[in-house]
């Protein structure tokens, strides 16, 4: 599969799984708060594809894109959302704390900023144990407000840990604008005064993000320094849940329209169609749809955990 098509496959998987959740959610069987990634797909897919199997990834509650582009699997994913024994964490984690250590997704968390220091510790362990991994941590613009971001970033710079910090900036946390939260005009201009490398980009083109992530990975390793990527996207839906919320007054549909013109899935599809890969595109799409349908059916049919499972997994 060409790179462009492989990227599209992941984009489409994330998008379609999200749309499936939106359809299923009103049935009240997915009883876990979902923070959907509609609009954000190119960042998760571009970065994860670039770093690939060699990476250890850390993220937030808005992690479906990460999980799906790293694992490409949907059985355990949906089972986890349905709270089933067959889920990625047997139903204990739900949407907000998905992990898949075997695919490099090491930690996600419902408390803002909390996986950032964890990633720094992972980068330290990676150096000490010479495991030769690429460490990547994703967080929202809200995490920049938290002291722990600054502590963690500073520590990574002190220890000169090669790792990638990715701020996925949608300008909102969750409904409060940056101007009411950030005492600086541009975060990358602040952070470039640390011993690190910084990049900033507003693209929604997955291939551009992919190249940038490749470059970031390379530079981090070459220069043995942290790299900060400031990437941007527009959150299409409400903060948590499956609906739009343009009628709530804190933002306008116009903004959405502007961003939707460069919707990451549409962009990449267009590129592939222009490359005359229409047939491959629809094969990928069909396969993804089938996969998702099958996984949802399996998840629904799967058993809930046993009551005794409540007490399992606290202690090692």
């Amino acid at each position: 599969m060409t790179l462009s098509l492989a990227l599209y496959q992941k984009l489409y998987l994330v998008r379609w799984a999200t749309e499936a959740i939106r359809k299923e959610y009103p049935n009240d069987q997915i009883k876990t708060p979902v923070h959907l990634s509609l609009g954000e797909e190119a960042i998760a897919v571009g970065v994860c594809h670039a770093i690939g199997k060699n990476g250890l990834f850390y993220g937030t509650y808005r992690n479906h894109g990460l999980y799906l582009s790293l694992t490409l699997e949907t059985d355990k994913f949906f089972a986890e959302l349905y709270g089933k024994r067959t889920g990625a964490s047997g139903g204990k984690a739900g949407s907000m704390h998905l992990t898949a250590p075997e695919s490099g997704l090491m930690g996600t968390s419902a408390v803002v900023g909390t996986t950032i220091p964890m990633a720094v510790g992972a980068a330290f362990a990676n150096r000490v144990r010479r495991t030769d991994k690429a460490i990547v941590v994703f967080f929202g613009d809200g995490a920049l407000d938290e002291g722990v971001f600054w502590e963690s970033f500073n520590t990574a710079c002190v220890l000169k840990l090669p790792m990638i910090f990715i701020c996925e900036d949608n300008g909102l946390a969750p409904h409060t604008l940056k101007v009411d939260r950030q005492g600086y005009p541009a975060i990358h201009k602040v952070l470039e005064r640390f011993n690190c490398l910084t990049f900033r980009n507003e693209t929604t083109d997955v291939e551009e993000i992919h190249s940038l992530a490749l470059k970031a990975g390379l530079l981090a390793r070459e220069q043995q320094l942290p790299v900060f990527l400031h990437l941007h996207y527009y959150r299409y839906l409400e903060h948590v849940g499956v609906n739009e919320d343009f009628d709530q007054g804190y933002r306008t549909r116009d903004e959405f329209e502007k961003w939707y013109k460069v919707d990451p899935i549409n962009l990449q599809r267009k590129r592939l169609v222009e490359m005359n890969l229409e047939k491959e595109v629809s094969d990928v799409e069909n396969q993804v749809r089938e996969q998702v349908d099958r996984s949802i059916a399996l998840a629904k049919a799967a058993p809930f955990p046993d009551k005794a499972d409540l007490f399992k997994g606290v202690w090692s």
Partner: protein
Amino acid sequence: MSESKESRTITFQEAIAEALNQEMARDESVFVYGLDVADHKGIYGTTLGLAKKFGGTRCFSTPLSEEAMMGFGLGAATNGLRPINVHIRVDFLLLAMNQLINMVATHRYGSNGKTAVPLVIRAAIGRGWGQGYQHSKTLQSIFAHIPGLKVVMPTTPYDVKGLLIASIRDNNPVIFIEHRWLYFQKGIVPEESYEVPLGSGKIAKEGADITVVATSWMNVEALKAQEILSRRNVSIEIVDVRTVAPLDKDVIIKSVLKTGHCVVADYDWINCGFSSEVAAMVSEECFGRLKSPVTRIGFAPTPCPTTRALEDEFYPGAVDIIRAVEKKLGLSATDISGDDFYSYENKFRGPF
């Protein structure tokens, strides 16, 4: 407790909003701040409209900086204002424990009583719809452990209004813990302003056979247990402690001396918790006069799992109280197959 002649019925949520509106109108040093207090959701509706009515310096959303915002409250409280810092989940107070325990709780003492710290910290506690282990704690036992902090856990609309007003007027730091499921509860609430004194528990339901000491949502569960057991002529007395610190020991002791049995139904973990405190205190104060050892009911000793199947096991409820009471009184198990227990889907649906 409520001896009002009013009969206006409003929700717990509305009672909070009313308390805030009345206090902010009465005293311009009162202000509300925290993540999202000024957004369109307005902390489950409780802060809606405050920014518009009182202006953006009386109600404003802040950066995501819990530790600094707690210290900010201390600085404002010791300079003539009466801050109300709001947290949409008590779990986020864990980011502010240093300011809360090392600074807020000690500042007055360290000044040898010169400086007062009139700071209210409202924190919602959650449950249901897969909140999971990072959005489902209560932590009142931890707060109550620290000298210098008051801890309030209202159950009824009447109490929440009166306790919030009393907390705002109190010159000490008060942690005010609101259970999300209670927001929809309705009750009679006078329109005028009134205080329910901090440190006063109440008999939520009189009874003769056994005392159930309950906090927050567990009062709702206790009431359900009481209803069901009353069919068998078991008469439960429910003590709603209302404030966890300072604790109204007298109302508890008096009740237990009357019934001879005590179940503590707390909404927190058991180990080294508030239920341990009540059990230790009752065992001491009622020594030789208890017909059975004090029974503690609380969270399972695990983090809170996400899936509903396990979450229902994690949290205690009316059934646990019923079974504990039966055991104490030597009764066979009541048939509860026909009974409806609280299910949050009846009140709201996910995700938040």
